[in-house]
């Protein structure tokens, strides 16, 4: 079924319009040509017929006049019969001057009257008959008229045939023209239609569309130009695709970089928030650490003033005041050290330090608070090193405090020192909870406290190991923690015997 759209397309087609135009021209032209032809042909026929009638009638008239002059009526009758044999002649008759028929090829008409004045079509009813009338002269005097009646049927038939032929030939000619127009217009129109399709495809963005026309005429050149245009568009868009691809890849990389930066910033932010939380916890801890000894100092001072107490008790309380004062002092210098470490103003005050003597001092300070817990073993080759005595003592004490803090009261702490090459190795080993591998670096960070519970003391400042590491690093040494056997942790401090390189910035 042909849809309205395709029907409309068909009638919109230039080819159909062309053919319709040809048909219209033919519809006007063919009848005109036919009429023209008939008119010419008709004239020809009638001229020919008139000449034939004229010569025939002259011959018959001559014979009649001859027979009348001889008065030979028999011959006259015979001559009339012979004339009748002519296919065009229907009747021959001779009349007197008044029109009374004297002789006739049809004997029934003798004695009747016919018109004599002129030649012409016989009457309205019988257009197919033509009467030729000629005066008959015998010896110089007109004796009557000869009347020859011709049939025009033959002529009419010939004319009709000519009309039919003319129509037929013109129809065939029209058909031929239409077929030729159809073929020629097809040859003209099809390439144009193809190019129209191709250009529509290009317009829709299909730059791979190509015309298949390869002729050398203007249409072929147009098709070649169209193909060139499509190829250039294709190259252009392909280039653009490449550039868009490159730009997209660039953007993707930039985006990834940006995302990476965002993640880094988020990570940094998270760390800062963590640090901030640690710091406020630290402030709280510092506050607690400082207030506890202050409470003792103020409280015992007040007690000594207000209560009457035995002298020994008074001395003990004064010693508590002194001890708590020292504890306060130590805490404050730890916080100050951390401030210096943070500000990058951590400068060593180095001198010759006897390590066995230093460790002995530390044990003297620590042991009374934790009787029987410390086991010391110092190698013979451990002598003096170049170090900041106060800071090194604090570093080692902090490591020992850490061991005491994170192991049960009944467990011993092993403290060893030995010389290995140009290094002194100090090991502090406990039988405590140990340090899991993922925390072995973190425990040295500021304010970091193991998630594991310290069994016998509330958490300290969270700075002890940080300060210890800072001190050891400043001496050009190193500090690490490893797993002890059968359990617990072992802190290893390595110190150069003499500071060979300038202290590292911490």
């Amino acid at each position: 079924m042909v849809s309205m759209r395709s029907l409309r397309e068909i009638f919109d087609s230039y080819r159909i319009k062309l053919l319709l135009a040809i048909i219209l021209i033919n519809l006007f032209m063919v009848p005109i040509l036919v009429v023209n032809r008939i008119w010419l042909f008709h004239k020809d026929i009638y001229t020919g017929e008139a000449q034939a009638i004229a010569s025939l009638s002259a011959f018959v008239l001559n014979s009649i006049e001859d027979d009348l002059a001889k008065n030979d009526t028999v011959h006259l009758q015979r001559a009339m019969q012979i004339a009748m044999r002519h296919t065009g002649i229907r009747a021959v008759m001779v009349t007197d001057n008044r029109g009374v028929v004297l002789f006739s090829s049809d004997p029934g008409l003798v004695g009747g009257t016919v018109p004599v004045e002129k030649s012409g079509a016989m009457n309205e009813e019988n257009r197919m008959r033509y009467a030729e009338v000629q005066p008959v002269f015998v010896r110089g005097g007109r004796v009557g008229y000869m009347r020859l009646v011709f049939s025009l049927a033959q002529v009419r038939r010939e004319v009709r045939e000519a009309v039919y032929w003319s129509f037929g030939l013109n129809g065939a000619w029209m058909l031929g023209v239409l077929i030729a127009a159809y073929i020629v217009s097809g040859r003209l129109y099809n390439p144009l239609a193809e190019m129209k399709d191709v250009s529509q495809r290009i317009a829709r963005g299909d730059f791979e569309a190509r015309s298949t026309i390869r002729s050398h005429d203007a249409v072929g050149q147009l098709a070649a130009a169209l193909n060139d245009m499509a190829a250039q568009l294709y190259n252009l868009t392909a280039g653009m695709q490449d550039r868009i691809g490159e730009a997209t890849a660039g953007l993707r990389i930039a985006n990834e970089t940006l995302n990476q930066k965002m993640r880094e910033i988020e990570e940094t932010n998270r760390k800062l928030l963590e640090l901030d939380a640690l710091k406020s916890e630290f402030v709280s801890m510092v506050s607690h650490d400082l207030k506890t000894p202050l409470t003792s100092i103020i409280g015992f001072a007040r007690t000594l003033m207000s209560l009457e107490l035995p002298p020994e008790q008074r001395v003990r309380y004064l010693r508590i005041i002194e001890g708590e004062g020292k504890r306060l002092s130590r805490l404050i210098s730890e916080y100050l050290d951390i401030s210096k470490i943070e500000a990058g103003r951590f400068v060593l005050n180095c001198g010759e330090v006897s390590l066995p003597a230093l460790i002995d001092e530390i044990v003297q300070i620590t042991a009374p608070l934790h009787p029987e817990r410390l086991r010391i073993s110092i190698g013979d080759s451990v002598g003096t090193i170049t170090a900041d005595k106060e800071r090194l003592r604090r570093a080692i004490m902090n490591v020992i405090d850490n061991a005491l803090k994170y192991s049960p009261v009944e467990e011993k702490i092993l403290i060893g020192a030995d010389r290995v090459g140009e290094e002194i190795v100090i090991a502090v080993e406990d039988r405590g909870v140990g340090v899991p591998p993922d925390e072995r670096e973190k425990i040295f960070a500021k304010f970091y406290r193991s998630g594991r519970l310290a069994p016998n003391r509330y958490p300290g400042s969270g700075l002890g190991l940080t300060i210890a590491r800072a001190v050891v690093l400043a001496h050009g040494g190193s500090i690490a923690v490893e797993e002890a056997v059968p359990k617990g942790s072992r802190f290893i401090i390595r110190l150069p015997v003499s500071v060979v390189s300038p202290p590292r910035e911490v």
Partner: protein
Amino acid sequence: MPEKSVFIVDDDPNIRELLAVNLSAAGYTVATAADGLEGAEKLHALRPHCVVLDVMMPGLDGWELCKIIRDDPSLSATRILMLTARDRERDRLIGIDIFGADEYMVKPFEIDDLLQAVRRLVGE
């Protein structure tokens, strides 16, 4: 009239000594514990009139011990005085409203203030 009893729970030996000597001098019967667990163990035998409780202690901390006392009907008469170095208002509200402490003192405190607070809670 029997003496009023005060139970001191603090992990700092100096503070324990300080509180004990002053409260004894003020006429109270004094007992001490060095951490929350020891405090919890001794509570039922002592059934003190007042507990002076440090907040930050290893093991069982002051808040947890406070809650244990408040959840025990046999200790309903025991008054609780919290001692801490934390002085933030939030901590005070937690101590009094959530854990049911009766009084809250911040270190360092004046001995006279502490004695007055105990007197307010349990009388002479």
